[in-house]
């Protein structure tokens, strides 16, 4: 007897997960050594891209019965997409796991708590920049009021899972929004700045510095007003329709002017922005605009390189040398193939010696909100990451994405290395090197 849930789930996989993409996998196994969860589980095929694809196909074909173990196999995926550049067959794993999450999301009965959380997160905070600002104000209040100090003292946070506690410990100090720098005459490029919901609130200092540095490099920076969260978090969590709602709003927001680039400083957002074109390819009204939007999307390191920052760095002098290293943002590296540009900037930074972190391209375990959902696996991955960090003894770990930044801070904190090592966003790092005085 096939249960009602099984029927619904199979139908949902058939409707949402493309057979053609599944057929692209020929099961050669070349993805296995690239997959952080395969390695962290001592080579459990269940937690590999090849294993997950075979389970997606099995769900579609009705060859496997949906149960907790199948669900776990999908949930355990970081979505880092390190398997994509490793795949000679060109399997679009990112699309497949997103489609799978939609399929599961639509067919799975939800508990009331999960429903509320999802609704608040995806229809509330991450859908509307004002609500995000309000949420961040709460964080600000929490920090300023002394409540943070108090809760830390009385161990209020012990009530939460250990990872939540770690997250809380590394929340950046939020500064109140300042008036943005006024526009200067464009010399090198007209750049529209995609501020990102988290970056614009929790990390608004970094955004301010991004603008200053771009202007220092002679660019005109424009901040389209109606922009919203990129929609990546929705897309990765099986709420693609809501992600695309945000995408369309952003495309409209950035469509009015003729920009040379649409720049972002968060790897996770940037990858999703660069795939608007792909996601909206069947939307007649938006497909062309989406394509153009994606083509103009660029990450901050690449734009810095294009605007000649390397030469300026090389011209500067500094005596002291300390070690700096870099942890890749998975999506910046695996989706946008950007990994040389940030490294070249660090190599040219005066006062620092760049050393490559072993397996820098492998996920740190942050993966959006993965470290909240799968704390055990995320912790395992982070521990092996920190092992490599300790071998290098850097003073700075530079990142290109807010999630990675916080995760590396958690790692530093867990190892008790706060005095020796600092995790910083690449923009903040370069700002300190160049413009601090």
């Amino acid at each position, binding site marked *: 007897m096939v249960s009602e849930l099984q029927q619904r789930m199979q139908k949902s996989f058939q409707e949402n997960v493309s057979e*053609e993409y599944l*057929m*692209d996998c*020929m*099961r*050669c*196994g*070349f993805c*296995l*050594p690239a997959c952080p969860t395969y390695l962290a589980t*001592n*080579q*459990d*095929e*269940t937690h*590999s891209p090849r*294993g997950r694809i*075979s*389970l997606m196909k*099995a769900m579609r074909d009705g*060859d*496997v*019965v949906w*149960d*907790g*173990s*199948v669900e*776990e*196999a999908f949930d355990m995926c970081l979505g880092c997409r390190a398997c994509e550049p490793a*795949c*000679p*067959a*060109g399997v679009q794993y990112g699309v497949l796991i997103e489609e799978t999450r939609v399929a599961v999301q639509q067919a799975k009965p939800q508990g009331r708590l999960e429903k509320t959380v999802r609704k608040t997160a995806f229809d509330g905070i991450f859908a509307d920049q004002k609500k995000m600002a309000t949420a961040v104000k709460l964080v600000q209040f929490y920090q300023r009021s002394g409540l943070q100090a108090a809760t830390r003292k009385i161990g209020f946070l012990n009530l939460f899972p250990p990872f939540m506690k770690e997250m809380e410990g590394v929340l950046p100090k939020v500064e109140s929004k300042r008036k943005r720098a006024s526009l200067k005459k464009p010399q090198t490029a007209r750049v529209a700045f995609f501020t990102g919901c988290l970056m614009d609130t929790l990390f608004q200092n970094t955004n301010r510095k991004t603008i200053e540095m771009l202007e220092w490099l002679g660019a005109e920076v424009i901040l389209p007003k109606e922009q919203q969260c990129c929609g990546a978090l929705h897309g990765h969590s099986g709420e693609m329709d809501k992600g695309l709602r945000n995408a369309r709003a952003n495309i409209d927001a950035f469509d009015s002017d003729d920009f040379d680039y649409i720049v972002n400083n968060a790897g996770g957002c940037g990858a999703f922005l660069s795939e608007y074109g792909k996601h909206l390819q069947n939307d007649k009204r938006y497909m062309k605009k989406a394509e153009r939007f994606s083509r103009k999307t660029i990450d901050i390191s690449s734009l810095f390189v294009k605007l000649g920052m390397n030469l300026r760095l090389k011209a500067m002098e500094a005596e002291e040398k300390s070690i700096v290293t870099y942890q890749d943002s998975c999506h910046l590296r695996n989706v946008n193939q950007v990994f040389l540009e940030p490294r070249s900037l660090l190599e040219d930074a005066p006062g620092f010696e760049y050393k490559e972190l072993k397996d820098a391209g492998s996920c740190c375990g942050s993966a959006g909100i993965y470290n909240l959902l799968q704390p055990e696996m995320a912790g395992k991955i982070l521990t092996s990451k920190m092992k490599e960090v300790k071998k290098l003894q850097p003073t700075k770990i530079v990142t290109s994405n807010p999630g990675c930044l916080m995760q590396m801070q958690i790692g530093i904190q867990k190892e008790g290395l706060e005095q020796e090592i600092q995790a910083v966003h690449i923009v903040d790092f370069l700002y300190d090197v160049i413009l601090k005085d």
Partner: protein
Amino acid sequence: MESEIKNSFKSVVGAEYVKDSKAQLFAYSYDATANFQALPDLVLSPKNTEEVQEIVKICDKEQIPIVPRGSGTNLAAGTVPTKGGIVLLFNNMNKILELDKENLTVTVQPGVITQDLSIYVEQNGLFYPPDPSSMKISTIGGNVSENSGGLRGLKYGVTKDYVKALTLVTPDGGIVKLGGKLAKDVAGYDLMSLLIGGEGTLGIITEITLKLIPLPAVKKTGIAYFNSLEDAAKTVSAIISNRIIPVTLEFMDKGTIGAVEDFMKIGLPREAEAMLLMEQDGNKEQVDEDIRQMIAIAEEMGATSAILAASEKEAASLKAGRRVALSALSRKRPTTILEDATVPRSEIAKMVRAIQDIALKYDVEISTFGHAGDGNLHPTCLTDIRDREEMDRVERALDEIFHIAIELGGTITGEHGVGEMKAPYLEWKLGASGMNLMRSIKQSIDPKNIMNPGKIFAKETKKRLVIHNGQ
């Protein structure tokens, strides 16, 4: 499987090293072979030879099939548990045990990844030549059980040329040590040879000692493009008859070049009909001279371009491109079925031509790449398993490729193994008496047929294709 038996396995390896959830059993139901899939009853990860021995004893008593599996990159369905039973993993037996610098050997557990071993010994100035294309993830245990080849086979041979000693758990649960760190050993039958390439059908290998050689000082890579497949094939024969034995003499046809370029984006010329990758290693003078000569021969045979790779990096990416050829080809069509026909080197041009003719005759898409210098080609059918009519033509085309390979003095598989996929063709190569001899060996060592059953020996041999010429 009864829960009582399951529990006895659990008590051998410990519950945390047993996989039996629905998702896990499914994840171990396949390897890299298209169209073969079957669920195991249990997946076990023993930690040492003794645990393997205990597992085998239970399997022997209860007559449970046992399938040893490395990373599941097999291309002949050799690691698919088609009769159910135990899938045996070596993820807990993946240590390099000893590097012996006096005897130039390395002793490893079966789960060591081939590339990890290769890097490790090279850091010590030594060299382990076998380099199957899947070496980034394949295991030494899998390589030994399949007698894997690779890109360096022409000069350095294949896995069996490097195995010095094995520890084996026999189907009745005994432990046998074969070979040793010896240059010579004629004490009795060469049982090791049976185990190497035995595809897990005669016992479970739990420890391997490999021969190492000094790391060559220099290597250089040449590359040649051709307007016809035959010019490339003639170049291969001419190089060897000029008494040059390069490390690598790899071949890719137009379809393969395009697919590899799609993935690698290294600037391969899509318009070329064929390319040859020619690598030599050794001392500098000899390497320079051999490469110079090979380039000259290629030009003489009509290469449109024949040059030295500009840098070590370019050479590495060309080789990487060749390694991913099969997987890259699979982007063209939903299903990829590859063959492993091998002929004497002298027959390579004939074989290449025959494959082209067969593709036309059956109207199927075949791209070919392979170890041209070894006479080992990988004609790969690009098809769609859901299209029965097309699959039927594919099958007939592949039958004919096997047939021609054997006619030319070749074999049905050079390096991928027989597994379950090629078992129906094995008699074509061995004949009835050859099969009987092999069967009697299998029966005397594994009378209960628990060791990877269904592999090598087919229920039925495929009817030999009759080819009409000149019709």
